[in-house]
């Protein structure tokens, strides 16, 4: 029984059927250790994003074994996958915050998934505390449309981290940001994750942030190449 938060063996995945079948992942092995920050790079079409959706239980597995936070995803039910997603913090390329909610309300949404967390007031207090940790205290009651790109991504990080997930998956979180805010955002992610021992798996094209990683994994043609 592997103890790593993410442990993939011999994972294969293909889009399409029959003559149109197009494999994107082949015999892929990958492990992310507890507290480790892993950057996943590679050219477009190398399968990074597909891999991330498999680990995030957003797609059904086809072959191989994918253990995430102790849950085998091959053949996992829809309900099991939804339950696992609640234990993962997602950070997207676009912030994907709900435009009609304030920053604090957006962050508190994550906590609604954890009924034992408490009532509205408790959720809100925790959301504000988390916004404080990403340096956004004074923007708690501001809607995303009135925030800058970097500020939105900070709120998105707060939303991903507030419920104390066992794993953080991020897809090009710096793509929409300028150099300095991109740098700030990944460093913030890394610092917060390190402090609570959360592993991060981060897909990026951005060579400027490679140095924040404990390990860089390069992918090509659906395989890990180094």
């Amino acid at each position, binding site marked *: 029984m592997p103890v790593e938060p993410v442990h993939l063996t011999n994972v294969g995945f293909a889009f399409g059927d029959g003559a149109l079948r197009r494999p994107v992942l082949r015999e892929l092995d990958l492990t992310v250790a507890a507290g480790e920050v892993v950057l996943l790079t590679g050219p477009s079409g190398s399968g990074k994003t597909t891999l*991330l959706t498999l680990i995030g239980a957003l797609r059904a597995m086809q072959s191989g074994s994918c253990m995430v936070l102790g849950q085998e995803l091959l053949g996992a039910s829809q309900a099991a996958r939804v339950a696992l*997603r609640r234990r993962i913090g997602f950070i*997207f390329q676009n912030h994907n915050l709900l*435009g*009609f909610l304030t920053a604090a*309300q957006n962050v508190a949404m994550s906590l609604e998934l954890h009924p034992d967390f408490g009532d509205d007031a408790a959720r809100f207090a925790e959301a504000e505390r988390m916004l404080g940790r990403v340096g956004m205290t004074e923007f708690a009651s501001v809607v995303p449309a009135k925030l800058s790109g970097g500020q939105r991504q900070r709120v998105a990080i707060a939303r991903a981290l507030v419920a104390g997930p066992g794993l953080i998956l991020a897809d090009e979180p710096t793509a929409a940001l300028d150099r300095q805010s991109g740098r700030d955002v990944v460093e913030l992610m890394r610092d917060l994750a390190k402090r609570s021992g959360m592993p991060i798996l981060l897909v990026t094209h951005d060579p400027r942030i490679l140095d924040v990683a404990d390990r860089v994994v390069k992918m090509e043609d659906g395989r890990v190449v180094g």
Partner: protein
Amino acid sequence: MSPFLPVRLAWRQLRAERARLFSAIAGVMFACVLVFMQLGFRSALFDSATALPQALQGELFLVHPLTTALFRPESFPRVRAYQTLAVPEVALAVPIYMMQSIWRNPVNGSHRAIQLIGFDTEAGAVSFPGLTELIPALKRPYTIAFDWKSRPEFGPVAAMIAANGPLHVQIGNRDVEIVGTVALGASFGADGNAVMSETNFRRLASKRDPSNIDLVALRLRPGADPIAAQRALTALLPGDVKVVTHDQLVAWERNYWETATPIGFIFAFGSLMGLIVGMVIVYQILFADIASHLAEYATLKAMGFSPGYLRLVVMGASAILAGLGFIPGILASAGLYDVVAKATLLPLRMDATRGAMVLALIFGMCAFAGLLAMRKLRDADPADMF
């Protein structure tokens, strides 16, 4: 799972886009008003069509079995009225004559069909508001009481009487004197009514055989059981009359309008159209809300919100729209009822039963729209988010 959080989320989402929210509310309100008007007209039709049987006082009635509606009665022998007196429970039998005749408008001379109702005005079996004071005057030859709730095409009779006293008009080419007005109400079967004594009816309907009558109102002795009397009378009388209670008489009339005419269907169809239009509007709004927030919905799915939670958001939004549209809808309808009732003299009224029924219909309509719009949620695929 408590519906509070998803419904609150739905409300916050609706609230964020005012223009869309108001157009949705206007759509629901429109459907609401349309359904209220259709149901109101339908019920006003039935109320007005049954105004005559409603106004008749009597525990039991005799009608010809082939009579489909009272504005077009089949007549039967007058002797049946006297035969009923053989049953000890019957205290009084009052024959009633009815006929359509031609009224000449006293102002412009135009012609219009009017329903003449003749009976023994002193017997107390029929009483329309205003009739009691006119009974002595109605004993004079060629006098009638005019129904002031008749359609305005009959002329401003009530105003003319108020200004100049008794008025002479022509009915069926006979000169008659209007001695006063009663309140009965125009119905879809009769545009107007004139009430008179039996003798005066015979004078106006000289071609008719007075031994044929159209309806008999029976008064029973105090304490008599109408059902037992009905049974006894049915056994006694031949098959050319049917013995019915007051409720049955009203139901008979109502049933004619409901089933034998397309009117009931027309209003039901109109209501359905209103609901479909409203449903399409609500569906469009909910669909647009989901479509323009697909990324957010997909994000919620990725975060681990179950499909059930998101469905509750959509259903919550549809319920909120139903509630917000219904309130102005019922207020506007109540106002329109007043306006239309004054214009058409139809008895349009808002009542709690109809309010509750339309509320249920509107919620059903919005729920259906929500169920349709919900299918769009499937397009929110969290795997597309990366």
